[in-house]
């Protein structure tokens, strides 16, 4: 009997046959996450129904030295939940209970499969919400958000998942259930919670998440400003920040992404715009009103030819609909596309956007830009047609060149989508061997056998336990280690 068959039998006995999938057709459902051009069929899927199921599955994997990958809703965009062909995919999307909602303590305790937006929906009647809001917030899970340290449009003011998680229960790669952090802030000891959030499933699986709830703002004002060019929209962004205003969000879309959004959701953005900015302010009424006046004036001074202010929540939703649907909408103007996720210092926006256009032109591909201007998180959509020979390669080259531009300007290869399998090879461009080795020290502390989501984040797997200077090249179970 194959090792995986033995494992399947043991898992069926321990957590129930209905929760263990081995049928190839069923397994195919899980062959990719939101980044569909990487596909791997897992050897086995466990549909966890409890923390104990997760722990049992991980313990059995550890005993059999079989790799495992965690998966929430599968909306990730870096292949972080891409299965391992010889491994177990542990699905947490059925763990959907909001365990404890404590507005008086500004906390909620939720299971990892709870959908991001559900936390806000549960907290809103009490006057609170959950601030991190990835564009996929209607379907993405909190567990996945924790794995990827997800961001969203409102990170500029409110921070990322890591700023809003105070406690976790985690199944460590040896199957042990460990509590990291808690309800109160500043748990003594190393901030393993901080290291775990954003570790992309390589340090274990979160089975319970304690999040901060944020007071709903007294008011929200949303403005759409249309400009001739991204340069002018970028200048407006810089002016707003320089004026000491910290909006809840500043989002930018260029002409091509506006065109895509129009054709998909008819958001009716101003005609002829080379770029639009969406600026949102929230907080106490008097403060927001004062700042809103300043933002409006600064946009006009930077050359905005049309300004629209959302009069009510419906108009606000309409303004956001174009932005939130932009990724999907690009499918209407191009059969295939690569979403990049690089980050640059905000002040480098004009020069980098120009260079992106130049690089795209040199390679004969189009790039649509839709991004979080306030924090410099670009989302260039590199458009191509896979049916045209050579175009995919050219798009890939442009995509890589964009990341190099980000690194060159002091930025990052990923702002919110994660490294996953997609960008692991770019990590050495941003980090030295010593930097990667240091991250790997943490990996070795948690997962000495390299079983938790192997092949993600790090470009090359390494053997734990060897000290610097004593490394040697060796073949180990078919992968190169050093």
């Amino acid at each position, binding site marked *: 009997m194959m090792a995986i068959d033995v494992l399947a039998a043991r898992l069926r006995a321990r957590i129930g046959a209905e929760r263990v999938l081995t049928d190839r057709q069923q397994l195919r459902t899980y062959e990719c996450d939101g980044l569909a051009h990487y596909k791997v069929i897992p050897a086995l899927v466990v549909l966890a129904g409890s923390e104990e199921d997760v722990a049992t599955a991980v313990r059995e994997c550890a005993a059999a030295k079989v790799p495992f990958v965690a998966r929430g809703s599968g909306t990730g965009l870096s292949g972080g939940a891409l299965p391992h062909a010889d491994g177990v995919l542990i699905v947490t999307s059925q763990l959907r209970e909001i365990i404890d909602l404590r507005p008086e303590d500004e906390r909620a305790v939720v299971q990892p499969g709870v959908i991001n937006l559900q936390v806000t929906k549960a907290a809103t009647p009490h006057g609170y919400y959950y601030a991190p809001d990835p564009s996929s917030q209607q379907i993405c899970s909190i567990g996945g958000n924790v794995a990827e340290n997800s961001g969203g449009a409102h990170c500029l003011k409110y921070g990322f998942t890591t700023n809003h998680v105070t406690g976790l229960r985690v199944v460590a790669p040896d199957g042990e259930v460990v509590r990291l952090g808690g309800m109160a802030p500043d748990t*003594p000891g190393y901030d*393993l919670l901080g290291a775990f959030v954003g570790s992309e499933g390589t340090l274990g699986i979160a089975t319970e998440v304690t999040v901060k709830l944020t007071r709903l703002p007294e008011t929200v004002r949303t403005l759409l400003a249309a400009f001739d060019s991204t340069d002018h929209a970028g200048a407006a962004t810089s002016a707003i920040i320089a004026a000491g205003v910290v909006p809840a969000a500043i989002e930018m879309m260029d002409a091509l992404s506006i065109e895509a959004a129009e054709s998909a959701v008819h958001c009716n953005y101003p005609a002829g715009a080379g770029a639009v900015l969406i600026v949102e302010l929230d907080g*106490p009424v008097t403060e927001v009103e004062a700042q809103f006046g300043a933002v409006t004036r600064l946009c006009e001074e930077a050359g905005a030819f049309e300004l629209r202010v959302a009069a009510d929540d419906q108009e606000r939703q309409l303004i956001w609909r174009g932005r939130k649907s932009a990724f999907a909408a690009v499918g209407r103007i191009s059969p295939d596309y690569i979403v990049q996720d690089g980050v640059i210092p905000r002040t480098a926006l004009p020069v980098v956007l120009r260079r992106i256009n130049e690089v795209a032109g040199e390679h004969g591909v189009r790039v649509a830009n839709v991004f979080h201007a306030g924090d410099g998180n670009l989302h260039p959509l590199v458009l191509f047609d896979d049916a045209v020979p050579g175009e995919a390669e050219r798009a890939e080259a442009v995509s890589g060149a964009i990341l190099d531009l980000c690194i060159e300007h002091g930025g990052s290869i990923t702002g919110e989508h994660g490294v996953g399998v997609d960008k692991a090879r770019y990590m050495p461009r941003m980090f030295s061997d010593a930097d990667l080795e240091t991250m790997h020290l943490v990996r070795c502390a948690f997962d000495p056998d390299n079983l938790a989501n192997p092949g993600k984040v790090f470009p090359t797997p390494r053997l734990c336990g060897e000290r610097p200077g004593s490394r040697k090249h060796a073949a180990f179970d078919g992968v190169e280690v050093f």
Partner: protein
Amino acid sequence: MSALDDLAVKAGDDDVVGGVPARLVAAPASTEEAAALIAASADLNVVIRGGGTKIEWGTPPRDLDLIIDTRRLTGVVEHAAGDLITVVRAGTPMAELHALPGQQLALDAPATATAGGTVAANASGPRRLRYGTARDLLIGITVVRPDGTITKAGGKVVKNVAGYDLGKLYTGSFGTLGLITECVFRLHPVPATAFFVRAAAPPGSAARILAGQFAASALEVHAVPGADPEIAVLLEGAADRSAEVAHLLDGEVSDEPPPWWGVTPPGTVLVKLTGVLSQVPALVATAVGAGATVTGSAGAGVLYAGFTGDPHGRVELLRAAAVRAGGHAVVLTAPDDVRDTLDMWGPVPGLALMRRVKDQFDPAHRFAPGRFAGGI
């Protein structure tokens, strides 16, 4: 000549940590020099010292050969105002960061504390309510590992998920994982106006401020045994909210903070107490009942209790109260003669994993040995 021979001098009378005297002191002036020093001192036990404002925090080192002093590792390397970030060497006094034109590193720390020390001790003050703590404001870091390797994590952009967020791991690690030599911080604009509302009010009234729409930047309580407790609120931005808060609390508006604002309470023993927000009043009551002066953030659930006298029973009492409140009680400092008999850190979840992290970074356990939780 090794970097150790070049840099180290014989320790003086003041070169003592938690009652343990050092043999040598060395003050490297660059990351590279620090790396050479650390590599050359592979058989020495090391404690790192910045401004020394928190050098008495934590358990005393088991052994101490060398103090690495960061007083020459100073200077603002970069202040990119348009990007709201700054890059500073670890030994830079916070006074320099307080003086950045138009912008601020929103960490409350004494002027003589260093940036690196503030990160290493994970110190925080009143404004953590609005701006978060060092772990939230640190976006990049350079560290020399105990084996002398120079390593970086994070970067110069606020939004960044490339690789592990090691800045968080180093924050609050008390110098047990290496020497922080450079930090990249997120900055905030200096607000146009700032008002303090001060009132004689029980800690429980903090909940009314939190539940309102005041967007307070800080919400502090202060309680002294035998006196009425006080509450103070910092409001930045528009002025009208301070009048509303003053009305609500029957307090007074001032542009100056009360004298106890952000000040560590007096005493020979200092305990950091954490708990969920609804339990802050109970925590304050327990601490005051035990004879402690309490100052801290009712908005964040982080309090500091100071007292003088035998700490044993009182630490147990405070720890039990903190656990009931969902938090922890950590003794930051205590007289040298009782430290050995005191459980300063208390129970810490995930300790086995922490030991494994320490083993990976510092296999010989020579960086701040015994200073940290669980004897790490």
